[in-house]
């Protein structure tokens, strides 16, 4: 492996080929921790998980364990879950409520605003001389509450979260707004599902970036009919009426799929297994169209906020984070969301459907995990590593300023309605990955500030 040359060697966008090394090489994995996870904005949780002062939820940012908590004054913080004295975890619960985080090793204790408030033998052993104000919990340098979703970064030079998102915010909103497009908000449903799989974190990240080519893997689930109307794994009627698009943000590394209905086309009824749920969503869709106008024609599909946050805005509505645990292991965390104001019957119905679909016991996610795990295992050998993966689908057919029936979509768009599939979004993930791996600073990474247009794209002849 060479130290440099991610874009010119390991991630060859001109050829549409990516080396297996970036998935299985331990040195590259180590570099990712510094280059990606210490610099990017990462999802740590949702405000509905910590509604009251003293509430906390233990989360992760890359390999780092962190505590998301609300202090006594109601302010939200994210702290490194590590005592400043000898590094022991100061919180070993998954979630709860507490007035202090006390290290069980030597007893240093921190208030929920991170201040060091308890030092055993402070007068006797330290002679009162330890400057406690300098030894509080390490706090993230930037934290953003975006529509209830909490994001953080360790990098003081990183752009604000809003700048990090850019116009991708409109697509992220499809996951975070209440379904009627109003400000009623969403909340986390139940607990967070957590499980470990034997593959590199980029396998699931790529999958959720927009790999619709693997639909064949889910054919058995579709045959079983786990969907909320009794056939397939989701309701798909609106998809048959819509343009099917993949949208990439080259300068930021975010990407998603969307469906766009023709102007004036109402969204067909869904959730036929429950008249109450069906009616609830029909009402919400009507409200959403009224509030959002033409944008209400856009229906969300899986996407990814760079680097490791997967969006699944609808059926089921979840966010997943792929926590790196070594080159060959990933810890998956999945949050499930419902409208805060939805009737209990709707929440109960969705819970059952979500569990059926996603997570370690979900039939669809089981298919995915099997693919990722075996693909990783089969790519580790010295012979296997010599052969790159192919990412050539649709190369050169992406379009800026895409418009359908009077609605212009932000981002660079690949229309796959007729093509059926593309690896446009997947290339975008690795394009940005390579930029992060090579760039020395955010001055280099914030390419949009310089108005750079060339991101190594090879366009097909117009």
């Amino acid at each position, binding site marked *: 492996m060479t130290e440099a040359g991610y874009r010119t060697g390991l991630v060859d966008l001109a050829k549409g080929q990516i080396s297996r090394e970036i998935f299985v090489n331990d040195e590259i994995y180590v570099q990712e921790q510094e280059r990606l996870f210490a610099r990017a904005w990462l999802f740590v949780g949702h405000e509905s998980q910590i509604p009251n002062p003293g509430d906390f939820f233990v989360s992760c940012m890359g390999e780092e364990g962190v505590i998301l908590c609300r202090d006594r004054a109601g302010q939200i913080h994210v702290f490194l879950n590590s005592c400043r004295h000898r590094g022991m975890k100061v919180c070993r619960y998954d979630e709860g409520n*507490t*007035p*202090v985080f*006390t290290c*069980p090793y030597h*007893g240093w*204790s921190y208030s929920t605003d991170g201040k060091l*408030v*308890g030092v*055993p*033998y402070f007068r006797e052993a330290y002679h009162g001389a330890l400057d406690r104000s300098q030894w509080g919990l390490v706090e993230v340098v930037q934290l953003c509450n975006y529509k209830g979703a909490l994001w953080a970064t360790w990098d003081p030079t990183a752009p604000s979260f809003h700048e990090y998102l850019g116009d991708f915010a409109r697509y992220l909103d499809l996951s975070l707004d209440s379904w009627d497009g109003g400000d009623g908000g969403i909340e986390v449903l139940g607990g967070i599902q957590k499980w470990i799989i034997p593959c590199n974190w980029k396998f699931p990240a790529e999958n959720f970036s927009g790999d619709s080519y693997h639909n064949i893997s889910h054919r058995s689930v579709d045959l079983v009919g786990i969907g909320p109307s009794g056939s397939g794994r989701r309701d798909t009627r609106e998809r048959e009426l819509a343009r099917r698009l993949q949208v990439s943000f080259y300068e930021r590394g975010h990407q998603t799929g969307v469906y766009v209905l023709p102007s004036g086309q109402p969204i067909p009824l869904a959730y036929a297994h429950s008249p109450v749920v069906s009616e609830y969503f029909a009402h919400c869709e009507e409200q959403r169209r009224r509030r959002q106008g033409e944008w209400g024609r856009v229906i969300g599909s899986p996407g990814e906020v760079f680097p490791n946050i997967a969006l699944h805005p609808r059926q089921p509505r979840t966010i997943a984070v792929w926590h790196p645990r070594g080159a060959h292991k990933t810890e998956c965390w999945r949050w499930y969301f419902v409208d805060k104001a939805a009737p209990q019957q709707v929440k109960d119905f969705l819970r059952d459907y979500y569990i059926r679909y996603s997570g370690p016991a979900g039939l669809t996610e089981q298919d995915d995990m099997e693919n990722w795990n075996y693909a990783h295992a089969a790519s580790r050998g010295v012979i296997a590593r010599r052969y790159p993966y192919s990412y050539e689908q649709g190369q050169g057919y992406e379009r800026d300023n895409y418009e359908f029936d009077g609605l212009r979509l932000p981002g660079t768009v690949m229309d796959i309605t007729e093509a059926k599939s593309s690896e446009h979004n997947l290339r975008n993930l690795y394009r940005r990955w390579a930029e992060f791996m090579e760039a020395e600073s955010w001055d280099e990474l914030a390419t949009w500030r310089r108005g750079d247009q060339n991101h190594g794209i090879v366009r097909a002849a117009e």
Partner: protein
Amino acid sequence: MSDLVNTRELTPGTHIVLVDGAVAEVVSNPLDGVWVVARYLSSPVDPSVVGQEEMIFAQDIAGVRAPG
């Protein structure tokens, strides 16, 4: 039988005797088994702390003083 005080069982209002002879009243308990917050009622070593609230380390607690 151990005389060790289980700090998790100390409720607000309980009077505790510290190893330096001070007496303090428990104000709150984070239930972490390590600390309690208490107000000094007396201190033979440092009378200036009387009336102050401080976090008291479990290993500095010698015992519980019976009420009255």
